[in-house]
């Protein structure tokens, strides 16, 4: 039988606890420092503006792109390579534009993204498009179908087959000569497309636009969400354990975790997006889950061993649940590491945040929640009366 910490008897709740309290204070200070001095790299959800993700055929030269976008008068542009180097993907962020364009239907968002895409095109591509050629990497299914529709009988099948091929190949066709080999594209269609098309240097992966009001409202909603969750948990623990002090210590522990997780997001400069908010809320849930397992054991032991010192009981409870605490967080950490490593760019900030939160959540349920409970009982001379 494989075992860890089965008969653990670490003296964690005595003088040692102060070391951990110091560690926690230190982590909190670092997080607070990061949040105050560095702030958050607010994602498009919160900051508003436009983000355009494009994938190039060849490794993009960021400086050239920047120059092209600046020439187009797009102002404050942030270009970032994302994914692996051979993905050739960049994310272009344009800050909120203070123009009067707002008002036209489809207004600002569409306008900015269109301008970005237009600016990224090479002069040859622009000339070809003006000459009525179709860009194989930018044309959507419906555009392609209509373009073919005026020239071929089976336009919809050809468009379908071509787009499927393109989607399977990362959204990009490298050469017009590839077309002939795509199953479902008839020879006539292939020769028509090969002669009347160009292969653009990039494909559009995604466009995001968030207006200023939406971002502001979202920030408010987020603050409410976290507050409500904490309140809900506080009330639940209070009711469940009949003692407000237990509720307060567990809430301190979870605020500790969420605060540090948020601090680490700030410190690493990862994008603070809606999914990170979801991660922070999940940490709330996980942290309290862990704390409750320890508290449940303390309550059980308090009933069994009335004559023991409070510290001894808490220490024994923490030790008894230690193997479970470690195993659960280990299995969770494994799932999260997989998510962080293989889950792709979009989930990266979320997975990272969860990883930090779960790590600290495990630590805090023992060294913050339980330790604070001991401190509180010493300090205020509280006595646990049988619930």
């Amino acid at each position: 039988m494989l075992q860890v910490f089965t008969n653990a008897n670490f003296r964690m709740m005595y003088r040692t606890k102060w070391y951990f309290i110091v560690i926690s204070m230190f982590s909190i200070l670092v997080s607070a420092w990061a949040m105050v001095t560095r702030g958050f790299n607010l994602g498009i959800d919160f900051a508003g503006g436009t983000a355009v993700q494009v994938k190039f055929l060849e490794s993009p030269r960021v400086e050239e792109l920047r120059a092209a976008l600046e020439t187009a008068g797009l102002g404050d542009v942030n270009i970032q390579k994302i994914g692996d180097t051979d993905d050739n993907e960049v994310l272009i962020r344009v800050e909120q534009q203070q123009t009067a364009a707002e008002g036209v239907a489809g207004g600002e968002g569409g306008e900015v993204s269109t301008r970005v895409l237009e600016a990224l095109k090479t002069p040859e591509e622009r000339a070809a498009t003006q000459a009525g050629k179709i860009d194989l990497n930018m044309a959507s299914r419906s555009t392609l179908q209509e373009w073919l529709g005026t020239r071929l009988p089976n336009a919809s099948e050809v468009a379908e087959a071509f787009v499927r091929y393109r989607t399977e190949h990362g959204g990009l066709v490298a050469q017009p000569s590839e077309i002939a080999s795509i199953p479902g594209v008839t020879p006539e269609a292939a020769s028509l497309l090969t002669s009347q098309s160009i292969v653009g240097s990039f494909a559009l992966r995604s466009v995001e636009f968030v207006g200023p009001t939406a971002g502001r409202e979202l920030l408010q909603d987020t603050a409410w969400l976290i507050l409500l969750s904490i309140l809900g948990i506080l009330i639940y623990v209070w009711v469940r354990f009949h003692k407000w002090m237990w509720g307060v210590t567990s809430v301190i522990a979870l605020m500790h975790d969420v605060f540090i997780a948020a601090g680490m997001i700030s410190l690493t400069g990862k994008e603070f997006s809606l999914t990170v908010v979801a991660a922070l809320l999940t940490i709330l849930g996980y942290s309290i889950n862990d704390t409750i397992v320890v508290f449940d054991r303390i309550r059980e032991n308090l009933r069994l061993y009335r004559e023991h010192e409070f510290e001894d009981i808490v220490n024994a409870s923490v030790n008894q649940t230690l193997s479970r605490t470690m195993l659960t967080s280990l299995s969770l950490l494994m799932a999260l590491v997989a998510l962080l490593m293989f889950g792709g760019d979009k989930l990266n900030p979320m997975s990272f945040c969860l990883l930090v939160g779960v790590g600290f959540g495990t630590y805090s349920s023992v060294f913050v929640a339980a330790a604070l409970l001991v401190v509180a009982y010493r300090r205020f001379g509280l006595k646990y009366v049988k619930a």
Partner: protein
Amino acid sequence: MNLDIRWRLLLTLAIVVLSCLAVYPPARKIHLGLDLKGGIHMVMRVKTDDAVRAEIDLSQERIRGALGEKGLAPQRVAADGINALILDGVDPARTGEIRDLVGRQFPQFQITTPGPGRLRAQLKPADEAGIRDSAVRQALETIRTRVDRFGVAEPTIQRQGTGAKNDRILVQLPGVEDPERVKDLIGSPAFLEWKLVKVPPGVVADQFRPPDNPDSLAKMFGGTLPEDVEALPQDLVGQDGKAVQVYWPVTKSSPITGNDLKNSRRDQDRFGQPAVNFLLTADAGKRFQELTRQNQGQLLAILLDRKIISAPRINAVISDQGIIEGGNFTLESTEDLSLKLRSGALPAGMEVLEERTVGPSLGADSVRQGIVASLIGSMLVVLFMLVYYRMSGANAVFALACNILILLAAMAYFGSTLTLPGIAGIALTIGMAVDANVLVFERIREEMRNGRTVKASIGAGFEKALTTIVDSNLTTFIPAFFLWAKGTGPVKGFALTLMVGIVANLFTAVFVSRTLFDALLTLRPRIDRLSI
């Protein structure tokens, strides 16, 4: 006991089978969110202020007209704020008469007398709210019409928001990948156009009969149409009741378009037939006046969606208002048309608050990455449980598999969408799900160390761990619930998978896992060692 276990095994089996049925085939049953299958998500705000302003503009003309007929015309009628009109220079002796008249004919206004010779007509709050509300409904209707015409499968077009935010419209178009085009389609007000008809040389405008195909039209011009002329169709109903199309030669440029519309309403022509009236902006009114003055006797085509509705002869100088007639209008169609024109008549009517477009290739990549990450994560967890708990680990792994299966089945059954963060939620559920098993198994080990029999240990393990499992799951549920209730889009999907995962977990870790242990105990009643 025996019977009891048989029933429990049967129930477990039934749930597994039902879940499999609900999920199979996954490609059809699991609805992927827009971030996974690609598509456009847009939240738009209808600027209802414009609708109120337009109503005031229209009323301004009408009140002036109505009072003019009775010889009561005030010197000046002007808008006051967005929802009121000021009538200046009213004959003080006839104020009461005017009040009565306006009050009777325009019941939506509340009339006050701020000073001598002055009247103020303000929209009643209920009417104003009604105008705002119908503006949003009209925008919704227009978008729906346009999206339908575009031919999007399973679009979502909904009104969103409550209270002061009830002016929002959510548009989700799965599988549509070019945002520019869709935005143009949804947002573009270029519905209506006026174009001069360029009759072929030597033909009198009044006697021109458009042919039923563009080639014959070209022949009338001697083979090719002039450079600035194009052939556009008109849908007609022939004498035999069949639909026919005729082609008109019209200018390529459109001097006046729907962009120049200020307002439009259902109306009647002079024969009492349904028609639609329109009001142009001041600037366009001047251009219209110029156009009609210079082209007296010619035909002016009115086009909707590049199809000619009618091409009446210009008999008089028209400035900023007129009527669209002919075109086989019915009551409903004029209502629909004026409704479409009205939302087109609000060129500043829509504001995009949020737009997200995900290309299909990015969505496909996300699905692949999400599945790979979840599979690797679950393999690690499975391996870990098997190494650490041996046969009991296998029990936990079975419970875990059931958990994920039930989670997917519930999502398929309720038709909820799986988003990218939702996949993260599943990965997280995999990591969390074994928690309950670990709690139970550690308890069982503890009991066995204290010298209890296998059977007693299993019973005590499950019983003692139960409160903890319920407590910890419920508290995890609280933030997930708030996130689900208040969150939007992908994040809502994450919260949902988390919540369903928690409930499924309670069932599998407590009921399914226990059933398997009890089945083992029944098969081998005198078991004295448990592989745990």
